[in-house]
């Protein structure tokens, strides 16, 4: 019998405002065992009358980091996310357990010798968090496995990790980052301006002959669309991994 994943306390060491409605919590967890990029944690909040609520959050930090990063999108009528984004402060503690999940994961060192499979990452909104862990992990690895991120946001202001992604892509020819802004675009916007569709994937994604490995995370409609189109474009079903972030993630 495996050891139980125990609840542990993390201390908030920093809070980053990523977008108007998204914050990253940087947590110091003295009892953390290492994770794999793509995994998540369960966060548990307890009120003073004993009432508890739990939700899952993807880990946005790579395994190499000293601190664990959780990126939380504030859901207006949510129960847990507004607490994490509005109430929690630096030096507060928060209870969580993990890492959880052994399928939607990517480890650069698993790539067997020779050419590793190129990575296709497709994100919608805060679904970028587990993919960011993969991108950050990849940046830390000496193997520069070719990777592409296609990232759908509603507007420029709502792009999470925008500057970091720009910086990483500018300094690494084997990483391509492409944005699509579905509702509002700044003047002179050169990226896509629509929801992810088949033509966009055909244009941007790796050709299936390169044996890519695809990860897609976001709202259900985006994930369904992306997975279906990738299948039709010739991707192998077992090489398309999906994770959903619904509004009930509250």
């Amino acid at each position, binding site marked *: 019998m495996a*050891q139980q*994943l125990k609840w542990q306390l993390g201390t908030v060491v920093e809070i980053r405002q990523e977008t108007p409605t998204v914050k990253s919590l940087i947590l110091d967890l003295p009892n953390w065992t290492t994770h794999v990029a793509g995994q998540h944690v369960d966060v*548990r909040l307890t009120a003073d009358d004993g009432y*508890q609520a739990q939700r899952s959050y993807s880990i946005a930090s790579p395994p190499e980091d000293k601190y664990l990063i959780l990126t939380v999108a504030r859901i207006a009528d949510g*129960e847990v996310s507004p607490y994490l984004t509005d109430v929690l402060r630096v030096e507060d503690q928060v209870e969580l357990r993990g890492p959880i999940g052994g*399928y939607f994961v990517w480890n650069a060192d698993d790539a067997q010798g020779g050419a590793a499979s190129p990575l296709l990452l497709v994100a919608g909104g805060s679904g970028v968090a587990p993919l960011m862990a993969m991108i950050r992990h990849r940046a830390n690895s000496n193997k520069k496995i070719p990777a592409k991120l296609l990232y759908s946001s509603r507007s420029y202001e709502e792009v999470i990790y925008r500057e970091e992604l720009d910086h990483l892509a500018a300094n690494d020819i084997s990483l391509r980052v492409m944005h699509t802004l579905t509702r509002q675009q700044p003047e002179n916007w050169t990226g896509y301006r629509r929801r992810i569709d088949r033509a966009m994937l055909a244009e941007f994604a790796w050709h299936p002959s390169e044996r890519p490995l695809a990860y897609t995370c976001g709202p259900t409609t985006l994930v369904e669309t992306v997975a279906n189109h990738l299948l039709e474009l010739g991707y192998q079903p077992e090489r398309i991994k999906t994770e*959903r972030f619904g509004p*009930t993630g509250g």
Partner: protein
Amino acid sequence: MTEGFISRGFKGRPRGFDRALKERIPPGQFETDEFPVLSAGPTPRMPLERWDFSINGEITEDLKWTWNEFLKLPHETVTVDIHCVTKWSKLDTVWEGVSVDTLLSGINPESMPGVAYLIAFCDGGYTTNLPLADVRDGKAWIAYEYDGRPIAPEHGGPARLLVPHLYFWKSAKWIRGFKLFKEDRPGFWESAGYHNHGDPWNEQRYEGD
């Protein structure tokens, strides 16, 4: 589990509501009216004329039903609460399907000596393991309608297993059959860190819980 670190300033949703309702929500779960979709890969599309349901494995004679044969089996409407390990619970969901008791009733116990477990297998390659005791005696169905309509592909159509007393990953989508075994062996999520049994009332979410 009632211990826990008191989160400064956390109040949670208003409480003191319907106690009966509260007793239907297992620990760590919250109620939703929506029907979130969770799956590890693309949604498979299986034409009904190629669909069948098999029972095989450690059994002397395999069983198989085509889609049309399956629809002719005695079926029932069940109203159940479902609980996903990702924390949502949905109450009073209505399904139409064939009781697993009906499917197993055609098997002579002597043709499957010592069999105590099954692996549900599915289009797309998903598997999940269950003790036979958890699918017998009115505890499990192969459902093909949800809320009076064919089950949508992303929710597991044309047919999915329904085992409402366990976390919903046990209710395998796109099911195509059971493989029977004497010994238990882990399925897809059970090999990826999730609990082997998955009882929501004992909060058996992950390995070791």
